[in-house]
């Protein structure tokens, strides 16, 4: 993806910020929709496809947001309903002591200095209304008890700040009570959706996904074309013709990826990586044009929408009669697959406990959900020496690894991708410990915020990550940032271009495919990207 960074001020100018809050109390500071820091609103047509309330054309900068007439009642009842349904929500409204440990853990606060980006204040935006509407002390003492009236300005503030949170959960690692701002942001967004206030960069993918099976709206024939085009590229590179099993009944494994992987560079190289690996293994698997999206922007919309979009995964597995499901490299997709899918759309009793046909390993950790992460699968192959690899082919890469938020903090997938990376490249360096593993920083563009109009805010949010990348770039000469997330592969590109120019972004399985010695392949002179392989530079010059 090529993003236009020309409208954004230079880094030292962008970071001329003060983390000291203003003198005025936060309740008295109105929200300011500054261009470059918010996302465009959801188009009416997308809401209509999904049957969501109050579809209309509007802009956050409008004075009148055209809210439903009884909007206060809607919010109040929606609030109450969710307090009764989610212990997390009720609890997180009640027990925060405002110790402030979360304050400087948020990438948006670090990069913007806006006090309402401190997780504690982001939550207080809702708590203040909660106190007024649902607690006695709030009703009696009002502002003194931290309570405030529900007004249109509050709704505007919610919209701005709940779409300035990427639901990355970093704050919840540090909170002494595990208060998770992602939960609060999710509830905030659900309430906003009741009024018809969403962002288009989330709702268009949702609407697409509902109808065509994937966020990008790629139809079945287009999906087939794309994968076959990749197969041609692979043949050019390796001389091997690989086939693309699609909607194949009776396959052993259903393979699901985020659509970003077959849509744009550099995700496409990762997609080719999967295809080459499976071909080499002779895996009996299939893609699906219907379940052509593992990602789930429903997660950035509402719990109901997660379920509506996720239902197709098990449905398709059942229709095709596969034994188990394998999932590609994607961050938020794995939050859904790991923490929501089985509960929402299970039990998957028509599937079998995933077992690797190559090594015979039973994936006991996925025995109920029956879905395995690709790095769990590949690391198992490597551990059993089932792959012939030449990591030297990646010697032109000095690699660091970005833990994607959801695999790290909602799944605990930490060592598997590292094991894979260490097996396929010789130069691997970790970023500083405060920026990786469970403390990893978001790319700044997750949760539906990775759109161009929000670029300034994305770069601000991407600052802590970009800064850590530049640290290893300067220290070890790192030139490649690996990750297991499709959103990362799109959003970290401008983050690196801006904060650490010269570092490119890669998926893990792109590097696997580069190192993979395939049976009957011709001598490769370049990697998947067409960059000359180490020692083959002269060949390229001829």
């Amino acid at each position: 993806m090529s993003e236009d960074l020309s409208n954004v001020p230079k880094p030292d100018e962008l970071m001329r910020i003060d983390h000291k809050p203003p003198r005025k109390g936060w309740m008295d500071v109105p929200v300011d929709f500054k261009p470059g820091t918010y996302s465009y609103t959801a188009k009416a047509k997308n809401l209509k496809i999904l049957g969501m309330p109050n579809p209309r054309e509007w802009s956050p900068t409008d004075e009148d947001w055209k809210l439903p007439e009884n909007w206060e009642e809607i919010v109040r009842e929606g609030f109450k309903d969710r307090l009764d349904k989610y212990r997390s929500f009720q609890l997180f409204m009640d027990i925060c002591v405002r110790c402030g440990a979360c304050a400087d853990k948020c990438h948006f606060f670090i990069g913007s200095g806006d006090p309402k980006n401190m997780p504690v204040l982001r939550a207080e935006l809702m708590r203040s209304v909660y106190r007024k509407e649902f607690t006695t002390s709030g009703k009696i003492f009002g502002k003194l008890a931290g309570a405030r009236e529900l007004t249109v300005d509050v709704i505007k503030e919610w919209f701005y700040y709940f779409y300035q949170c990427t639901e990355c959960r970093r704050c919840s690692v540090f909170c002494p009570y595990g208060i998770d701002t992602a939960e609060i942001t999710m509830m905030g967004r659900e309430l906003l959706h009741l009024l018809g206030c969403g962002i288009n960069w989330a709702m268009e993918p949702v609407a697409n996904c509902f109808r065509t099976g994937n966020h990008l709206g790629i139809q079945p024939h287009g999906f087939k074309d794309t994968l076959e085009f990749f197969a041609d590229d692979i043949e050019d590179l390796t001389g091997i013709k690989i086939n693309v099993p699609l909607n194949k009944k009776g396959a052993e494994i259903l393979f699901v990826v985020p659509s970003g992987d077959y849509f744009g560079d550099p995700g496409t190289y990762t997609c080719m990586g999967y295809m080459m690996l499976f071909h080499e293994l002779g895996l009996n698997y299939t893609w699906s044009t219907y379940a052509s999206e593992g990602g789930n922007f429903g997660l950035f919309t509402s719990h109901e929408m997660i379920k509506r979009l996720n239902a197709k995964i098990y449905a398709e597995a059942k229709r095709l009669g596969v034994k188990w499901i394998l999932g590609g490299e994607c961050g938020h997709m794995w939050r859904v697959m790991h923490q929501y899918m089985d509960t929402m759309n299970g039990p998957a009793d028509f599937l079998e406990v995933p077992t690797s046909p190559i090594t015979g390993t039973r994936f006991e950790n996925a025995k109920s959900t029956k879905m395995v992460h690709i790095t769990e699968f590949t690391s198992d192959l490597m551990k059993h020496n089932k792959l012939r690899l030449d990591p030297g082919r990646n010697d032109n890469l000095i690699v660091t690894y970005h833990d994607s938020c959801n695999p790290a903090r909602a799944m605990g997938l930490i060592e598997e991708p590292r094991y894979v990376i260490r097996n396929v490249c010789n130069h691997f360096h970790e970023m500083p410990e405060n920026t990786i593993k469970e403390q990893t920083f978001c790319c700044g563009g997750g949760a539906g915020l990775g759109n161009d109009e929000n670029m300034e805010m994305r770069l601000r949010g991407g600052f802590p990550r970009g800064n850590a990348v530049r640290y290893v770039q300067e220290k070890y000469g790192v030139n490649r940032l690996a990750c297991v997330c499709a959103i990362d592969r799109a959003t970290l590109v401008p983050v690196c271009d801006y904060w650490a120019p010269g570092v490119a972004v890669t998926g893990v399985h792109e590097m696997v495919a580069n190192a993979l010695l395939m049976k009957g392949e011709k001598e490769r002179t370049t990697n998947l990207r067409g960059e000359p392989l180490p020692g083959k530079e002269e060949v390229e010059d001829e």
Partner: protein
Amino acid sequence: MGLWFSLFTVVILVLLVFMGVGVVGLNSLFGILIPYAALLIFLVGVVYRVGKWTKAPVPFRIPTTCGQQKSHPWIKANNFESPSNTFGVLVRMALEVLLFRSLFRNTRAELRADGPRVVYGGTKWLWLAGLAFHWSFLLILIRHLRFFTEPIPFFVNLVASMDGLFEIGVPTLYVTDIIILLAVTYLFLRRVVIPQIRYISLAADYFPLFLILGVALSGVLMRHFYKVDIYKVKELATGLFSFHPLVPEGIGLAFYIHLFLVSTLLAYFPFSKLMHMGGVFLSPTRNLANNNRMRRHVNPWNYPVKVHTYEEYEDEFREKMKAVGLPVEKE
């Protein structure tokens, strides 16, 4: 605003005792009725609040994982930061409740103009002060059992003698008294001094701090400076707890101030953020195992939703699918 209001309120509370006990002589009101009422509000309130949380279901299993999951046998899983079984959850919760594990992780991010760059430093002060405060509070509470029970259980003397190990002064200075005063003062000062924390602080944050400071100060003062007759204090306390209330004459005003502030704290507790004491046990991001793909979690209110079925999908795209040779269900 919240700071001054809270301070003012606590001062008023103290003055109330001066008036009520010192001038008007309402000893039974402050010595019997108010403590009983406060205790009742505390007990009923806590049960009500926890009951409300309990009533709300946990629809999804959403632990925040802070370590390696259990996957391959050859990758060392971190069962205390990303527990896959009940034992791991128990250890994780114990570390959280007893040692404030999450707060121990605390860091401080600092923006530097050169670059620009951001650097992170460990900062353990909040963790240390928080831990010192809570543990001191607990030990002080246990020590107080010498006034509440007859005969006095053995562990009370054990705690008290450990607490007064240094045998400084007569009566012996308790270490926890000093620690709690220092810790509360620190917790207050950081609220005032650190701009961000000051910005987020409400009256509901200052009030309990001042109240607890008042309780601790009045306790220390009457132990070491404004002596009260502890023989009579115990008569009053055991009288209360055995439902034979009495107010002996001449206990001393300092005691009534102490008792009234404690009563206020008890009665305020269930309505406030102090309920984090119960809440910390119920947090779904901490008290659930990261075994999502091993054991299915059931959502009690899981309801059917409108989905786009494969049949609807094929109906829309059948011709296009057939044209490129994709298999279809209905020809």
